[in-house]
């Protein structure tokens, strides 16, 4: 089988699996699990085979003209290069893990068939985005992901949180997608083609007429999809979805799509220094802000969500300094450990019966109960904090190295200031990242107090998936940083001494400070019980997803806020001081948006409603009323008396006769 055909099968299989799952889901429940797992797993294998066959060779292109639009034809095009095949492998790996994990996690969910089908569809869409060589086709996958994320985040649509979160995710990403779409058209109009290769050629040769505008428009979409400031707010709320969905969205698919797109289209961005500056500023704000916010979150998944935002900021920063190799490297390693973190968080939530770190910090037995989760999450958190020799270290070092390179003015097209911004922000974010990673680990696994209610043994599938993902988390960075430049055809990615020392040092500083703070507030923590804490009591064999759904649904009732808990024993509180409250609420960005957009929109809707109901409706009613009056009058004539009718008829006939006689 040719490489192209294999690559084409990769997105096709999950798609067919999704279709079959949706069709058969209700009638043949026995087929649902195989239909969910097998196509995805096969795609993973095929993606690996494609990666192996593609290897470090020249990019493979295949195209079939799909539609002739008159100006820029649309091709069903495949573009396989190092980035694409490696990311496809990552997507396949994470998707397979998520599907496996879900079989256990949602084992009793009545909506599992549609859920699994949607996850498959999501995966297929991401494969499409990754492999596509045509912007239009890429956009198709891009939008399918948006729809799927809407459905998946809203999986627990019975809860208000999930409903609003899914709508928010959809609306915010769409908000970015509209300019993105315009940007794509503008790009195609400038380049004369939707083929990415053609666009890149045009960009490289400076044939784009409005690179800044296009780049900024595209950035809007990227910011939406990849949850960059200021469109990141949907991501923490999207934690209302089931944990596997979070893992899928955060690690490999949805958020990665934005970064991947910028990586693919990097020449377009480098053509505009302004776009790079904006991207850098965006990334810097994102990194630091999300780090601070993560330090203040109470919900374990929200901490991870903010960490995702922060790591995506790293990738965006790498792109801002023009180094897509570093960005994709970090994307790959981050995908592995972030998936692991989320899936581990799912296990923890199930075991603890809550998603609140405050509660976990008052629970003693969690580490013993879920040792697999503790160890794998510990590794993954260390990777997140970029401690050597885990993969996160290498990938983050590559980003810092690129930034440092740019700040020295050695990178073409990239302003020095951008480099400096990114570099400083990256270092600051390293401290914060290490801090919140440490806080998460300490609060979740080093708590003390009474045992949480037992929810039974964790399913083997779930824990084994964690260990599977732990392997790349540990080894990928160290093994890959020498090989990857061959695949990407770019500069070396290895850590330099300066950045290693700086990065690792700062990370260690963050760890130690947090640990110190944790120790400092230990007494307070022991003294202050966390109020009505433990939820999801009762059935020991309850499905993990059910436990999580209840935890999400009850969090706000118990703690008064979906994001934070007023816990004096929280080290983050000590470290952030007065900033804590703002950080916990994502620096009130949602409130700002509420004031800036939601309220005006609601007011406008009110106005429209008023205009419609009281102004236009009046005309409509008037327009209806006049004929009705007329009808009532005419209706009076319908007496049912034939003689009346006949009289009128004959009178009319007489009048006509007279008219004819006189006029004729």
């Amino acid at each position, binding site marked *: 089988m040719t490489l192209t055909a294999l690559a084409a099968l990769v997105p096709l299989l999950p798609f067919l699996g999704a279709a079959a799952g949706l069709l058969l889901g209700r009638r043949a429940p026995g087929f649902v699990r195989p239909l969910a797992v097998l196509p995805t797993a096969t795609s993973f294998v095929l993606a690996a085979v494609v990666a192996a066959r593609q290897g470090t060779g020249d990019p493979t292109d295949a195209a079939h003209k799909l539609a002739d639009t008159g100006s820029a034809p649309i091709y069903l095009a495949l573009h396989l290069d190092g980035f694409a095949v490696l990311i496809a492998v990552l997507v396949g790996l994470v998707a397979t893990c998520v599907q496996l994990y879900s079989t256990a996690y949602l084992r009793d969910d009545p909506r599992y068939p549609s859920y699994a089908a949607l996850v498959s569809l999501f995966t297929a869409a991401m494969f499409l985005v990754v492999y596509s060589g045509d912007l239009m086709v890429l956009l198709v996958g891009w939008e399918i992901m948006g729809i799927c994320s809407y459905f998946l985040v809203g999986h627990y649509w019975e809860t208000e949180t999930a409903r609003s979160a899914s709508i928010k995710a959809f609306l915010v990403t769409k908000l970015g997608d509209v300019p993105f779409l315009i940007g794509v058209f503008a790009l195609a109009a400038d380049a004369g083609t939707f083929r990415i290769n053609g666009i890149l050629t045009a960009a490289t040769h400076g044939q784009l007429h409005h690179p800044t505008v296009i780049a900024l428009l595209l950035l809007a979409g990227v910011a939406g999809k990849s949850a960059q400031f200021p469109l990141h707010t949907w991501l923490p709320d999207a934690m209302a979805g089931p944990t596997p969905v979070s893992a899928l969205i955060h690690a490999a698919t949805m958020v990665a799509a934005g970064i991947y797109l910028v990586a693919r289209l990097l020449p377009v961005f480098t053509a505009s220094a302004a776009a790079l500056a904006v991207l850098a500023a965006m990334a810097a704000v994102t990194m630091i802000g999300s780090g601070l916010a993560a330090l203040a979150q109470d919900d374990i998944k929200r901490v991870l969500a903010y960490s995702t935002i922060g790591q995506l900021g790293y990738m965006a920063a790498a792109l801002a300094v023009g180094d897509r190799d570093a960005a994709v490297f970090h994307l790959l390693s981050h995908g592995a450990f972030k998936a692991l973190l989320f899936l581990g968080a799912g296990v923890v939530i199930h075991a603890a019966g809550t998603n609140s770190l405050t509660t976990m910090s008052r629970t003693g037995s969690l580490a013993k109960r879920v040792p697999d989760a503790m160890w794998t999450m510990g590794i993954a958190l260390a990777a997140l904090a970029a401690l050597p020799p885990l993969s996160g270290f290498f990938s983050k070092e590559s980003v810092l190295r690129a930034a440092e390179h740019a700040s020295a003015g050695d990178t073409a097209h990239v302003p020095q200031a951008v480099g400096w911004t990114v570099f400083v922000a990256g270092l600051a974010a390293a401290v914060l990242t290490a801090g919140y990673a440490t806080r998460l680990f300490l609060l979740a696994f080093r708590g003390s107090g009474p045992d949480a209610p037992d929810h039974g043994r964790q399913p083997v599938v779930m824990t084994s998936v964690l260990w599977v993902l732990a392997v790349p988390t540990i080894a990928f960075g160290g093994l890959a940083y020498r090989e990857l430049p061959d695949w990407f055809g770019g500069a070396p990615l290895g850590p330099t001494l300066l950045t290693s020392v700086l990065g690792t040092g700062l990370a260690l500083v963050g760890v130690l400070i947090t640990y110190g703070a944790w120790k400092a507030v230990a007494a307070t923590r022991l003294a202050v019980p966390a109020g009505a804490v433990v939820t999801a009591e009762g059935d020991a064999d309850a499905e993990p997803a059910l436990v999580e759904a209840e935890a999400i649904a009850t969090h706000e009732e118990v703690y008064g806020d979906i994001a934070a808990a007023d816990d004096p024993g929280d080290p983050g509180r000590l470290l952030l001081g007065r900033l804590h409250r703002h950080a916990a609420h994502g620096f009130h960005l949602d409130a700002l948006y509420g004031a800036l957009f939601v309220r005006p929109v609601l007011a406008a809707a009110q106005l429209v409603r008023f205009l419609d109901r009281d102004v236009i409706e009046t005309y409509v009613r008037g327009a209806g009323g006049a004929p009705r009056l007329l009808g009532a009058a005419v*209706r009076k004539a*319908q*007496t*049912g*008396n034939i*003689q009346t009718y006949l009289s009128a008829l*004959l009178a009319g006939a007489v009048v006509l006769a007279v008219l004819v006689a006189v006029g004729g």
Partner: protein
Amino acid sequence: MHLAYPAVLAVLLFCVGVYGVLARRNAILVLMSVELMLNAVNLNLVAFDVWLRDVVHSGQALTLFTITIAAAEIGLGLAIVLLVYRNRGSSDVDRLTDLAEPPEHGAPGHGDGTASGAGAADGTAADQNAEATA
């Protein structure tokens, strides 16, 4: 003879018939008026036939046909009138207003003392008839 005489007589007979059809309440009287109208037409046909000295006598032939059809019409018409009378206890044309637009707020039921005059009359007539046929 002047053609105007039979023609005018026919016109007047016809209009008398029109008046009867429009003004008479009893369905059988209406049928009689219809007969008058038909006869007016017949008179016209005969008069014009004689005037034109039609070789095929279409006027008289048509008159015969009209008379025949009138006989058939009267038979059917009476059958219908009798059926209506049997079912409703009345053969008044202006009471047969089932096709009228119903009143705005719905007609009151039979048990309602405020039933409108015509409705009550119809109802009681129908009731009597039902009793009679039962």
